[in-house]
């Protein structure tokens, strides 16, 4: 028994996921607590606030059958940790790292604090290896690079899971065969959604190199606070200790934020925007900033967090604060989805901030940046004109303007749209963009270096009709 451990039965208050324990001594901030309920069942908790004789504890797994008389609280003197070993690959855990695949507990090679420590900015290696996901809207216009954190902003009923699974399945860095792992952290998603991923991982053989942490919709909400941290601690171990390239998929971050809000409300904290705590930016950063590369180490952590935007509102605090931390975002559109286009990616609000360091000669292709800029400006104009036509018809539009509208239509159909199993190389993606740009008069390609136009442009005749 741990000499630092002390047990008390002095719970004075239970509010939501929080309990207050009185007459304690020497409780450390952040300490792990084991709570034994009147029924004999145990729960985990963590100290949120400590005073000379009083401690405020957040209880994972909920407080429903706790009481103030018989509940006993043991302060363990330890911080929250996870047991790690290379054998963790292929395993399935619940949201607090208990095995749920029928296997044994992991025999630890190492035990780590799940909160980790910040990477020293001087140790970071700026990410620049492009990942080919085989998906044109990503590779061509919002290239993902190793060590990036690139979330998918989605909405209820949109195919974000299919897209994330397709990325996990198809991702490769061309010309490099290195050890690769997928870590999947589910927070409050449904059984069906989680089994979709498990099936997809199983079918493609990815399960052997995956670690799953599953907190499903009917699991305790407060556990969601630690699920992503377990996943990321595992990722750091595999990436920076074992030299693997780790892709971390976390879904749904909105559920994570709900759990944060619940704790803040129970503590009667001054709420920030829409009731979320004022420190949510800092809290989310402590998750997202755990992506990256470290100079001199072979591995990397790439994150694809998925979040659903309540009401499809991109200014809602969850997508908003996420976008302020991550290195871009992939935004799904209900409109494209309704029109049957998969992946329904609305490219205008999308962004990959690390793209410019990961594309160009020697990485993808010399014309990549110019093509991207040209496609963006032409599509943006096409969409604007399409809106105009919707209001007052085609009259008065010049033939040039009509060509822009045609470009936007073709672009959605031939560039954005692709099959769930269709994999395009980056060169194929760029060639496709050139084919579509041929719809426009060459003088309109103002964002492309004339030398590239000479080298890559197609004549309009080669463009197949939609």
């Amino acid at each position, binding site marked *: 028994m741990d000499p630092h451990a002390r047990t008390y039965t002095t719970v004075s208050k239970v509010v939501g996921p929080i309990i207050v324990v009185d007459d304690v001594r020497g409780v450390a901030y952040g300490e792990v607590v084991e709570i034994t309920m009147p029924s004999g069942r145990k729960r985990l908790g963590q100290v949120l*606030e400590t005073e*000379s004789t009083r401690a405020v504890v957040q209880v994972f797994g909920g407080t429903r059958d706790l009481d103030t008389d018989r509940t006993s609280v043991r302060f363990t003197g330890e*911080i929250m940790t996870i047991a790690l070993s290379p054998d963790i690959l292929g395993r399935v855990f619940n949201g607090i790292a208990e095995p749920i695949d029928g296997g044994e507990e992991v025999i630890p090679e190492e035990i780590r604090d799940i909160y980790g*420590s*910040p990477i*020293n900015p001087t140790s970071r290696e*700026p990410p620049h290896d492009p990942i080919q996901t085989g998906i044109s809207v990503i590779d061509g216009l919002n290239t993902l690079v190793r060590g990036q954190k690139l979330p998918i902003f989605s909405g209820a009923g949109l195919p974000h899971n299919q897209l994330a699974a397709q990325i996990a399945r198809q991702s490769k860095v061309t010309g490099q065969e290195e050890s690769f792992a997928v870590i999947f952290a589910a927070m409050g998603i449904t059984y069906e959604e989680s089994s979709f991923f498990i099936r997809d991982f199983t079918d493609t053989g990815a399960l052997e190199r995956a670690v799953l942490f599953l907190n499903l919709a009917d699991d305790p909400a407060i556990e969601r606070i630690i699920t992503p941290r377990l996943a990321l601690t595992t990722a750091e171990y595999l990436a920076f200790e074992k030299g693997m390239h780790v892709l971390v998929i976390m879904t749904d971050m909105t559920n994570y934020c709900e759990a944060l809000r619940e704790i803040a409300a129970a503590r009667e904290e001054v709420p920030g925007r829409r009731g979320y705590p004022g420190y949510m930016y800092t809290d989310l*950063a402590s998750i997202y900033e755990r992506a990256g590369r470290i100079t001199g180490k072979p591995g990397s952590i790439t994150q694809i967090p998925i979040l659903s935007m309540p009401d499809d509102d991109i200014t809602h605090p969850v997508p908003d604060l996420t976008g302020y931390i991550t290195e871009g975002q992939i935004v799904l559109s209900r409109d494209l989805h309704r029109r049957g286009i998969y992946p329904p990616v609305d490219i205008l609000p999308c*962004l990959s901030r690390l793209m410019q360091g990961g594309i160009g000669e020697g990485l993808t292709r010399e014309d990549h940046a110019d093509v991207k800029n040209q496609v963006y400006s032409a599509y943006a104009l096409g969409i604007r004109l399409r809106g105009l036509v919707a209001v007052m018809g085609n009259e008065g539009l010049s033939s040039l303007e009509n060509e822009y509208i045609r470009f936007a239509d073709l672009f959605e159909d031939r560039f954005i749209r692709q099959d769930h199993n269709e994999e395009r190389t980056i060169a194929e993606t760029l060639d496709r963009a050139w084919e579509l740009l041929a719809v426009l008069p060459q*003088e309109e390609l103002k964002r492309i270096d004339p030398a590239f136009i000479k080298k890559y442009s197609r004549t309009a005749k080669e463009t197949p009709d939609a």
Partner: protein
Amino acid sequence: MYAQGIITRVIGPVVEASGMGGSTMYESVRVGDEALIGEIIILQGDIATIQVYEETSGITPGQPVQRTGQQLSVELGPGLLGTIYDGIQRPLTVIRGFSGDMITRGSTAPALDHNRRWAFTPLVSPGDTVNPGDRLGSVTESTSVTHYILVPPEGDGRILTIADTKDYTIEEVIATIQTDRGIIKVSMVRRWPVREPRPIQRRRDPKEPLITGQRIIDTLFPLVKGGTAAIPGPFGSGKTVVQQQLAKWVNADIIVYIGCGERGNEMADVLDEFPQLHDPRTGQPLINRMVLIANTSNMPVAAREASIYTGITIAEYYRDMGYDVAVMADSTSRWAEAMREISGRLEEMPGEEGYPAYLSSRLAEFYERAGLAEPLGKHEKLGSVSIIGAVSPPGGDFSEPVTQNTLRIVKVFWALDAELAYQRHFPAIDWLMSYSLYSHTVDSWWEEQIGEGWSRKKQEMMEILQKENEIQEIIRLVGPETLPEEDKLALIEAEIIRESYLMQFAFHPVDTFCSPKKQSLMLSAIFAFFTWAREAVAAGVSASEIRSSPIFPLLSRMGPVPAEEEEDLFSALFAAVKEPCIPVRGN
């Protein structure tokens, strides 16, 4: 030795301790068994509330708090340039040397290298009378910057001894001064409390433009040496890119770049890129005239609060030597949020949106530390601190408290617009919403240094953009058919201004920087084209013929054209507009 207090409470980054009688506000303390660095932010009887600059897990009531008797301060002296610090001036490269790739708690090291020797050249002689701010001597801090060692504030008097031209560490005494209050010894290192502005002789009105090489800024919304600017915008609209562009190209002597609560990869990028970039004026690596403060979003939040003060204090230190210093703070919103977070833990009465009531006064105090100044001392050169603060409004909504309180103080407002960023129109500075109160101040500089007619063209350019907006409004109401040809031409003119002048890609090897001369040349070419086009339209040429004229695509080549082809392009442009435009068919 000061009295020791005892921790009574720990909530996140905030700790309370009793037995702290005799301490002062903002005193620096060491918290707990691991002696974490903290600062007193509230005193009430003998209870002190302390913000702790490191992660507090494991800290337990009953552990000690040690006073230091000193305010939270920074170390100033040669060796600051080219260094990257965290929010409380811990040298991150040194820390990495002993604590590894992850920053572990309790890692500290002196901000400056105390063993390194610097070649000192005296500038005074024994017997000279000196006042605070006078130059005692100099060292070459980096090949591009001479670092002056100044007489400290308490140093009025007569020089007793001064060191010879030789190498010294920053701790060695290089001068002794006889003052009224006794003899003081001066070395090359000083400490200064970060929350206290460094004194100056007097403020002056700024008037010289701070040239950034970014057309929309220099032409339409200029900044001055000693001025203040805010750049608010939603995520991904280009705040950081603009700040980094300014750090690279601005004609200041020293750059202080504060990464306050933002991304680690962005700091890594600066560290990766800046040593390889060469200052166009000195030919030296840019990093040699730069100090970086990196307190990323996942680093302790209290140190984020301090990072802004650490940065501005270092900036003032170089200003006092007579330099022009530019401070980039990315993002001041994260700083404000750090205040809010600490304030929330203190259970203070919240103001608007949970921010503490003192938000606006803190913002004002920070921006007031900018300015053009006559430094203390006898030297003639003025020094300046310019501040460019990024603001990250929630949901991109500018009505929120940080944006609003900032706009009340700063003189330049570069409003970033999500729609422009979505269309990849960069820099996504909204030309109708942004303003600069220095716009007229710098006109005379441009007219005298660059070319006559500048302010008139600039004015007309704004009018065309304004007009475009009005015509668009009409199109939305009645459609495009009924527009007169003059209005159609106005739309084409606005398109040229937007796409060939205001738009400027930061990552383009040539267009990343545009000199004032080139800006003026481009404007002349654009207006020559406008005159040509207007005459043609008046003579019956249609606007759509103008748009398909072969001159049109040449205009968009002006920004990115490689230096060696620049002359040909401009000659071609000016030659082309000499020929009147003949209507093709009369359609």
